[in-house]
C-alpha cells in the first residue's frame, strides 16, 4: 500500500463524502493528489488555503551533516506550545533520527520558502504534521537510496534503523552522517513514491511520555529547549546580544486614536544615558498593526530610556480619538445590556421561536458579561531592528513573522525581500504577538539611527494600557421549557465589538469567523431557535486572545445550559446530553457557518458523538454523581473549538467566608490524532489555570478611554495558590479522525465550568466575570 493510499484511508475515505449539502460537490471533485495529501491540505481548506500554503521539500526542512547531526527547521513560532519540540519530533521520528543528535533551527519569516508561518488559530500541528512527515520520509528514502547505491544492492534490501541505514540481508550499516553528502545529490522522491512509517514503526509520535497526572512515565525525549530554558541561555526577544545597541521606549497616547499635541523633552534629555527623543507617527483609526504613535526616548540602556520617558511633558490631542475619549466600562456594559433587550441581526434560525417561547411552561433567561482582558504574556512586547544599506533586520518574538516582514517593509518603504525577520523564542504569545506593531515601532525609531540596532522595549504598563484587548461581551439567552423541562425554544443574542474594527471602519457586528467560534455552531438540538447579533461599537483596539470569541460564547451558553438544567430540576450532565441530541455530525454550512476554522467540513464536522464522549469521560473521572459534601460542588462545561472537543469538571468548595478552594479539575480532550501527547497535556493544564484567571480575576476596565489597570497589582492573573490542588488531563484517543487544534480549545469551557461548580457549592449564580469578590457578598 502506498503512503498516499494510507493517508486516504486515514483521513478521507472513512468520512462519508458529502452529506447532501450545498457547495459540497465542489469538494469532492478535488484533484486526486490533492485528496491524497490527506487531512487538511486540500487547496481550499486547511494549510493549503493559508497564505504561503504548505511546503514539504526535505531540502528546506532537513539537513544532515557528516558528523550525523540532524538539523530540522521549525517554521512556526515557539510561544510555549512546544512546537519546536513537537514538530521536530514528528520529523525526527519519520526520518529515524536519534533524538540526542537532533537540533532545531528556527526559520526566518518567509512564506515563499517555508509556507505559512502565522502561528495562531491552533494550526501548527494540524497543518504541518503531514508536510513534515512527508519531508522526513523523503529524506529517509534518499538516505536509503544512497546506501543502496553505495552497497550496489536494490533499495528494497535496505531499511532505516535509528540514525543508520541497514542492509537487511547482510546486516551492514551506514550512519546518517556517512550517507548525508551522497543522499543530498539524489532527486527528491515524488509524493506518490513516499512511504510513511506505520504507526507501530513510530517511536515518538502519539506515544505517552513525561508527567501524566502526577506520575512520571518517562523524561525522554526531552523538550528541545528545556536545558537552555532552565539554565538561562534561551534567547527571547530582548536577549539577542549586540555590540552597539540602543534602547528605546515610547510614550503612547492614553486613548485609542489620540495624537501628540505638543511635547517638551528638555528634562528627558537631561536624564543620564538618554541620547535622543523623537516622535513616532501613528496612523490613526483603524490602527490595524500600525503603531499608535507617540514620543520615543532612545538611550544607552532600558532603564535610562524609561527614566527619560517619565521626564517627558506631553500634551495629548484627544480630538482625533472622538468618543473613544469618553469610553467608560460601566456605562458601556449598561448600553450593551440595553441593546441586548432588542432584536438584532439574525444569523441563524429555525422553527417558530416566538410561539415556542409563548407556549413554554417555563421560560428561563439570563444575561452574561465578560470584560476586556489583556493577553499579558510574561515577556512584554519587544523588538530590535537594524537598518543598514537599504536593508532591515528584525529580531523579535512574533507569532506572524511574514506579516512582520511585510508591515515593516511597508513602513520603511522597502521591498519585503530586503527585510529579514529573525524569530526569537516568545515569552508567551496568547494572540498578543500576532500583531507586529511593536516591530514596526522599532523600525520607525531605527530609521533615525541607520546602521545601529535599536531595541524597543514595552513595559508591563505599556502592555496592559495599549493591548489589543479581548472583546468585552454581553450575551442574552432565553429558553422555553416544556412541562418535562425539555427545551422547546432557544434565543441567544451576542454583543461584542468586532476584531474587524481593527482593520476597517467599525462593522459593529461580529464577522463570520467570530460568530463561527461557538455561536452559530452551537450544537444543541432545539426545535425552535434564533441566534442574533445586535451591534456593539469598538472604542479600543480589539484583538485575538487565546481562543478568542469562543470565550464569551462558551461562557454564556455553558452557564445557561446549566441554568436550564436547574430550572428543569434535572442532573446537569444528563440534561446537556439530552440537549445535544443523538450522535450525529453537524456540517458547519447547515448552521450558517462558512468558516469552520478554515478546515474542510467533510473532515471536520461537529461530531456530537465525540462531544458526548468527552463529557462522559470528564464526568466519570471526576466522580460525577457522588455527594460532594458541605459547601462543595461539581461543575461541568464543554465546548467544540478549533475542530477539537473539550469537557471539564471542577470540584470546588466555598467556605463560610466566601473563600473558594479549587480541589480538582478533570479535563477530557479529543483532538483526533495526538502528535505529542506530552505537550498536549501541558497545554491543557495551562489552559485550566489561565481559565481560572478569566473566571475569577482578570479584567481591564476603562474610564474616559484610559485603561485603569497597568500592572499585575491590578490586572490579576492566577498565582500558584489559585491553581487546582489536583489537576487531571484525560486524552480521548481518536487516531482515525482528522487532526484538531490543541493550544486554544482547552480554554473556553473553563470559566463556565468553574462558575457552575460555584453554583453547585453555594447556590450563587455568577453572570458577571470576573467573580472577584462576588462570593463574599
Amino acid at each position, binding site marked *: 500500500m502506498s503512503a498516499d493510499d494510507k493517508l486516504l484511508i486515514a483521513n478521507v475515505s472513512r468520512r462519508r463524502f458529502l452529506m447532501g449539502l450545498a457547495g459540497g460537490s465542489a469538494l469532492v471533485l478535488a484533484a486526486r493528489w490533492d485528496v491524497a495529501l490527506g487531512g487538511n491540505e486540500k487547496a481550499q481548506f486547511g494549510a493549503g488555503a493559508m497564505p504561503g500554503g504548505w511546503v514539504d521539500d526535505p531540502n528546506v526542512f532537513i539537513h544532515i551533516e557528516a558528523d550525523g547531526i540532524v538539523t530540522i527547521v521549525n517554521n512556526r513560532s515557539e510561544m510555549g506550545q512546544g512546537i519546536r519540540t513537537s514538530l521536530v519530533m514528528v520529523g525526527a521520528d519519520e526520518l529515524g533520527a536519534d533524538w540526542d543528535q537532533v537540533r532545531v533551527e528556527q526559520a526566518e519569516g518567509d512564506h515563499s520558502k517555508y509556507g505559512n508561518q502565522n502561528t495562531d488559530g491552533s494550526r501548527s500541528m494540524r497543518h504541518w504534521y503531514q508536510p513534515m512527515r512527508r519531508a522526513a520520509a523523503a529524506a529517509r528514502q534518499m538516505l536509503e537510496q544512497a546506501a543502496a547505491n553505495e552497497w550496489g544492492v536494490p533499495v528494497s534490501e535496505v531499511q532505516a534503523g535509528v540514525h543508520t541505514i541497514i542492509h537487511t540481508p547482510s546486516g551492514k550499516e551506514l550512519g546518517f552522517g556517512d550517507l548525508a553528502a551522497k543522499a543530498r545529490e539524489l532527486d527528491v522522491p515524488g509524493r506518490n513514491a513516499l512511504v510513511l512509517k506505520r504507526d507501530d514503526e513510530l517511536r515518538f509520535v502519539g506515544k505517552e511520555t513525561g508527567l501524566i497526572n502526577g506520575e512520571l512515565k518517562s523524561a525522554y525525549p526531552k523538550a528541545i529547549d528545556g536545558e537552555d530554558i532552565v539554565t538561562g541561555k534561551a534567547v527571547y526577544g530582548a536577549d539577542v546580544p549586540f555590540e552597539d545597541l540602543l534602547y528605546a521606549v515610547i510614550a503612547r497616547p492614553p486613548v485609542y486614536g489620540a495624537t501628540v499635541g505638543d511635547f517638551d523633552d528638555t528634562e528627558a534629555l537631561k536624564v543620564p544615558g538618554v541620547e535622543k527623543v523623537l516622535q513616532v507617527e501613528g496612523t490613526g483609526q483603524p490602527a490595524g498593526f500600525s503603531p499608535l504613535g507617540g514620543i520615543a526616548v532612545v538611550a544607552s540602556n532600558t532603564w535610562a530610556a524609561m527614566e527619560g520617558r517619565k521626564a517627558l511633558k506631553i500634551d495629548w490631542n484627544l480630538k482625533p480619538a472622538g468618543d473613544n475619549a469618553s469610553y467608560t466600562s460601566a456605562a458601556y456594559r449598561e448600553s450593551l445590556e440595553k441593546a441586548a433587550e432588542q432584536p438584532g441581526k439574525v444569523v441563524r434560525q429555525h422553527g417558530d421561536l416566538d410561539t415556542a417561547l409563548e407556549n413554554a411552561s417555563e421560560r428561563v433567561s439570563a444575561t452574561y458579561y465578560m470584560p476586556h482582558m489583556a493577553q499579558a504574556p510574561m515577556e512584554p512586547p519587544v523588538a530590535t531592528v537594524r537598518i543598514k544599506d537599504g536593508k532591515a533586520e528584525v529580531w523579535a518574538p512574533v507569532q506572524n513573522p511574514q506579516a512582520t516582514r511585510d508591515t515593516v517593509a511597508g513602513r520603511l518603504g522597502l521591498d519585503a525581500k530586503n527585510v529579514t525577520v529573525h524569530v526569537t523564542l516568545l515569552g*508567551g504569545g496568547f494572540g498578543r504577538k500576532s500583531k507586529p506593531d511593536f516591530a514596526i515601532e522599532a523600525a520607525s525609531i531605527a530609521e533615525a539611527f541607520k546602521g545601529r540596532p535599536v531595541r524597543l522595549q514595552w513595559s508591563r504598563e505599556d502592555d496592559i494600557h495599549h493591548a489589543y484587548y479581548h472583546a468585552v461581551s454581553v450575551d442574552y439567552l432565553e429558553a422555553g421549557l416544556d412541562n418535562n423541562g425539555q427545551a422547546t425554544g432557544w434565543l441567544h443574542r451576542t454583543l461584542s465589538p468586532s476584531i474587524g474594527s481593527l482593520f476597517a471602519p467599525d462593522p459593529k457586528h461580529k464577522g463570520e469567523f467570530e460568530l463561527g467560534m461557538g455561536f452559530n455552531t452551537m450544537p444543541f438540538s432545539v426545535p425552535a431557535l434564533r441566534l442574533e447579533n445586535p451591534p456593539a461599537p469598538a472604542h479600543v483596539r480589539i484583538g485575538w486572545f487565546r481562543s478568542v470569541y469562543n470565550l464569551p460564547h462558551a461562557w454564556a451558553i455553558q452557564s445557561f445550559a446549566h441554568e436550564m438544567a436547574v430550572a428543569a430540576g434535572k442532573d446537569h450532565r444528563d440534561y446537556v446530553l439530552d440537549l445535544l441530541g443523538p450522535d450525529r455530525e453537524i456540517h458547519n454550512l447547515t448552521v450558517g457557518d462558512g468558516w469552520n476554522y478554515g478546515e474542510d467540513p467533510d473532515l471536520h464536522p461537529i461530531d456530537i458523538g465525540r462531544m458526548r464522549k468527552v463529557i462522559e469521560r470528564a464526568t466519570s473521572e471526576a466522580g460525577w454523581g457522588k455527594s460532594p459534601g458541605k459547601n462543595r460542588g461539581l461543575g461541568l462545561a464543554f465546548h467544540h473549538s478549533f475542530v477539537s472537543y473539550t469537557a471539564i469538571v471542577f470540584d470546588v468548595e466555598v467556605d463560610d467566608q466566601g473563600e473558594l478552594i479549587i480541589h480538582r479539575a478533570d479535563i477530557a480532550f479529543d483532538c483526533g490524532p495526538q502528535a505529542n501527547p506530552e505537550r498536549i497535556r501541558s497545554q491543557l493544564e495551562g489552559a485550566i489555570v*489561565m481559565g481560572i484567571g478569566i473566571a475569577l480575576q482578570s479584567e481591564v476596565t476603562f474610564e474616559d478611554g484610559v485603561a485603569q489597570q497597568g500592572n499585575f497589582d491590578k490586572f490579576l492573573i492566577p498565582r500558584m495558590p489559585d491553581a487546582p490542588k489536583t489537576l487531571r488531563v484525560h486524552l480521548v484517543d481518536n487516531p482515525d479522525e482528522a487532526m484538531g487544534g490543541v493550544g486554544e480549545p482547552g480554554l473556553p469551557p473553563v470559566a463556565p465550568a468553574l462558575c457552575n461548580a460555584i453554583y453547585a457549592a453555594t447556590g450563587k449564580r455568577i453572570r458577571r466575570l470576573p467573580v472577584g469578590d462576588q462570593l463574599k457578598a
Partner: protein
Amino acid sequence: MATLTINGERYELDVPDNMPLLWVIRDVVGLKGTKFGCGMSQCGACTVHLNGTAIRSCVTPVSAASGEITTIEAMADDPVGSKVQQAWLDLGVAQCGYCQGGQIMNATALLKRTPNPETGEIVDAMAGNLCRCGTYNRILAAIERASGKEGEA
C-alpha cells in the same frame, strides 16, 4: 560607580546608584537569563540571589546590592540549583519558559532555607512568581521532586 560581585566575578561599573539591579545585570553586564516582567516586584521573573536570598532585581537599586549576587546562569554549578533544574527538565515544567529562570531561583532559595518544605510552604513561597502559561502544578511537583519527595502534579 558600583562594585558588584555576580556569579563570583567582580564588576566595576559606571552606573547611577538608583539604577535597578535588573537592568545592570541585563544591559550593562550582559547576562540575559534574568528577565523583565513587570518592573514592580509583582511577577518574580527578575529573581536573583543576594547572599543566598531571593530578591527582585527590578526594584533593587544597584547601590543596595552589596554582597554576592547569583543569577540563573550560575545555578548549574550550585548543588541545590542543579537539582532543581534537573527536576524541571524531568517533569517538563516549562512551556514558554520566560518566567522559569525566576521560578528556579526562588525555588532554589526556598530549598536552601527549607530543604524539606511542606506543600503549603512551597505554595506560599512561590506565590510571588507569576507564570502566564499556568505551569504551577508542575512547578510544585518539580520542587517536591528536587526536595526528595515524589512529584505529584
